[in-house]
């Protein structure tokens, strides 16, 4: 292995339409891969964990770069880069959890090249957009020669870097339902340095009525094989008056629910311990935002 060279020999195409892209993936056999920003794929190619014989870039397909609000939801094309989502988020404050996530995702180079679709297709347990998109109940749209389908993101992640997407399916866009008016959201990650993959991350979306939590959604990253929707806590908090001690209990429930592993970035023990603390911080931020404060 030599990360200074790309060992694999490959063909490269940059089709302008989905039809063309699907035809190319069909023609070029099982080692053909889609590529968007390449910030995940090129690393894997240099490490020789993948060796595609053909790369099909999705960056010239206009349908994949939509970014707009429609009635009831926001559409983000799979090939939209973090830069664009960041710019969008500073004008439109409807999805603060997503905005928080993008702000701490990668740095200049990665934001300019990396895409939201690439993040979800790599499907790392630490993918920073995933918890935020999960708490907003997002859906992903996929297309292949067999047709189009829409999946709940919650049903999309299957295992470490494994998803419901077939190898010849293109992710076209992510659709995020417009949140109800009293919903606040937040995301935070713990990392070792300013530019780093998450040791652990957490997103919360909470609907608030005065001091009562009407409903909430919680998701965490890097605590399980997949970006994880937390089940117990939302039920526990529903229709309760939020107090500091309630959140301590909820945090403890989260620490108990998750089954993280030990790797070079962190230990299982630390992840478990800190999950509850992180949840409290993120919940607090989302809660404040739900109350109309920044």
């Amino acid at each position, binding site marked *: *292995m*030599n*990360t*200074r*060279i790309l*060992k694999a020999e490959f063909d490269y195409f940059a089709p302008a339409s989905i039809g063309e892209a699907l035809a190319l993936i069909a023609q070029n056999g099982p080692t053909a891969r889609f590529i968007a920003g390449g910030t995940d794929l090129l690393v894997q190619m240099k490490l020789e964990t993948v060796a595609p014989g053909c790369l099909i870039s999705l960056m010239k397909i206009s349908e994949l770069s939509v970014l707009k609000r429609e009635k009831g939801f926001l559409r983000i094309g799979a090939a939209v880069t973090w830069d664009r989502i960041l710019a969008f988020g500073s004008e439109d404050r409807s999805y603060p959890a997503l905005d928080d996530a993008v702000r701490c995702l990668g*740095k200049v180079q990665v934001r300019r090249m990396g895409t939201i679709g690439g993040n979800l297709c790599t499907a790392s347990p630490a993918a920073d957009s995933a918890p935020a998109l999960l708490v907003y109940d997002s859906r992903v749209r996929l297309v292949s020669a067999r047709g189009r389908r829409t999946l709940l993101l919650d049903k999309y992640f299957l295992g470490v870097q494994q998803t419901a997407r077939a190898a010849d399916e293109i992710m076209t866009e992510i659709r995020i339902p417009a949140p109800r008016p009293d919903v606040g959201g937040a995301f935070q990650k*713990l990392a*070792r*340095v*300013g*530019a*780093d*993959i998450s*040791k652990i991350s957490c997103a919360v979306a909470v609907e608030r009525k005065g001091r009562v939590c009407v409903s909430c959604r919680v998701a965490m990253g890097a605590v399980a094989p997949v970006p994880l929707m937390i089940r117990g806590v939302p039920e526990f908090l529903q229709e309760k008056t939020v107090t500091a001690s309630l959140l301590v209990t909820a945090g403890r429930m989260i620490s108990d629910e998750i089954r993280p592993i030990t790797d*070079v*970035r*962190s*230990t299982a023990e*630390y992840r478990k311990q*800190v999950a509850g*603390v*992180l949840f409290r911080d993120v919940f607090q931020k989302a809660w404040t935002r739900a109350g109309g404060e920044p």
Partner: protein
Amino acid sequence: MPEKQHPANDHPPVDVVGRSLPRCDAADKALGNTKYAEDYFLPGMLYGKVLRSEHAAAKILSIDTRNAEKLSGVRAVMTAKDVPHNETITRFGQTHTVGGFEGLYRILADKKVRFMGEGVALVAADTPAIAEEAARLIRVDYQPLPGVFDPFEALKRGAHRVGEESSNLVCYYKVRQGDITEGFAASDVIVKNTYRVPFQEHAYIEPEAGLAWIDDDGVINIQVCTQVIEHYREIADVLGLSYNKVRVKGTWIGGGFGGKEDITVETYLALLTWKTKRPVKMAYSREESIICHGKRHPYIMTYKTGATREGKLMALEAKLVSDAGAYVYLSPWVLLYSTVGAAGPYKIPHVKIDARTVLTNNTFSSAFRGFGVPQVCFAYESQMDELAERLHLSPLELRRRNYLRKGEATATGYVLEHYAASPEAAEKALEALGEKTKSKSPAVKIGRGIGSSMTSYGRMVFLHDTSRSYVGMELDGSVTVRCGVQDLGGGQASSLAQIAAEILGVSMADTRVFIADTALTPIAGTTTATRQLYMSGNATSMAAKEVRKNLLDKAGEILGAEPGDLDLRDGIISVMNDPSRSVPLNTVVRACASSGISLFHIAQFNAPARELVDFKKGQGQVFPDFTFGTHAAEVAVDVETGKIDVLKLAACFDVGKAINPQAVEGQLEGGTIQGMGYALLEDVILDKGITLTPSFSEYLIPTSLDAVDVRCILIESGDGIGPFGAKGVGEPSLVSAAPALANAVRDAIGAGIPDLPLTRNAS
């Protein structure tokens, strides 16, 4: 040789020295024009590749290179049997040979591999990809051995023997001063702790690289990023060539920090070019670099420190064990620095130090900025803060009562001959933190700490270190300096320009420095040990003064004045009391040239030379002088997550004289941030000798996003032994940063953490 070895400050620095002038290498670097080792190409060049061991400890049963040799585009495959002299002895006194420090190492592994990443075979091929493929096709049959990965395990009887010697113990040094039993008996408070510090990776921006070729005269040329061009002799030894048949040319270096002090690519390149007769280039990938080059030594340090109720240090006992890794390299030297530095900048009547370094099957350890001193500094400074707490004294006050001053003896019995700035530096560093930050949350605790150090500059005096420099006046009045200095990016070359320009009364722009060529520049020794400004700065200053003398003599003749009454600046020589009587420098230069007066000089500067200290008792002079300074830090610790935010950092050092204040600040900032990485996150993780952190995705260093503004305060005592009274600052700038941060964390959370990185148990 001139008699006087410490050039006195007889030239009042006014014009060039002491100013933050742009370094001579700055513009090209800012514009991306500077060429680094990897940026050179030659027609027809091949690409070299090293096949490295995947095992940390194994017997090599056989190596089959046939398939690799058959691959089209492969021009050479070499193994140990193809290397004329595969075993070399690392020896360090270029000018003076001292015994007891030799370590064997092999160019390529033979019969046995001792660490993961050890070179086993070499390939040269037409493209990097072919070289890569050829290396993959080499079949090495290994028989894995159990290996040993912990220095204490390695010291046990019956432990796996890493090398061929009967024991894994590389060396054992002792310091004995006073009577330790008496010292502890007289102490009212005693603190004892065991500290552990990890491997640290240099993480220079430029991985190892070079290009070699054979020139028209049959000389092997190697252009390489190295801190030591003088390895040309060892390379010649490996090939069995005479020393004038190997030429090493150093390039501008993208960081060294000690990691390019040992030989890296150069012997491999020499072998491949010698075998193929073609130019060969080699550049390590980041992973390869991290896996194969030496690291900062991990240490396990047990410290016992005693003080009286009044806060007077009475006794210090330290047991140091360091992990040398798989080959000796510089481990004995590093250990010696630790041994001498183990008691810190403090006056302690009773001292007992036992220091050992031990072979294991881990990646070898070697030089890293600070060279064995950051480890002990972390330990002794942690001890100081615990003592201060127990004695109800402020950390600053306890230190103040114990700092060594000029004229007092260190633990190794050396009486400090120069100003020791510790008290002043500590006060100023702490003061620079300004008002204490207020916490915004009950879970976030704010803390402050200081760390003081005493770090040598210049090599050990028993090495009889020397440097040489050429200074010449060109006929147009511009100045040429030739000096074999290697420039790591610290401004080593530029400082020499600044010194020569000052002495010869010309501008920096009119001064040109040619560096780092064993064939053409006078040999200046290693760019290590914080020695270049001191050594080559002195040599350059001496040479420039000789040229200046000739110029002033001639000008005196022309102006009818005493040379001593003349002033030389801005290209004009004038009579000091009557500036209307003057002559342009150009005119004087031409007058010298036509009357046969020499316009150049090569000077050799000899560091003070002493004999080897006996390290059964460890009493005597080991270093020429020390740099004193203190780091101060303010941190915010989230006690619920363990997250440490560094809020403020300050560094105050007595630099003697800042030849270029901005360059000095650059060193202080860089060293401090590198020390911050050591304190908070850096950790090369090895699992039974296998590197688990081979890239910057796992091995994290602080980036610009993490660096805080370092408040730099320069004390200029003028009492250094470098040019213009300068001291060295390259390594000292790192040494005390980690303990300052550790003590700040202690202050915040009310308990000391005895391990680095401090976040090891909170991540």
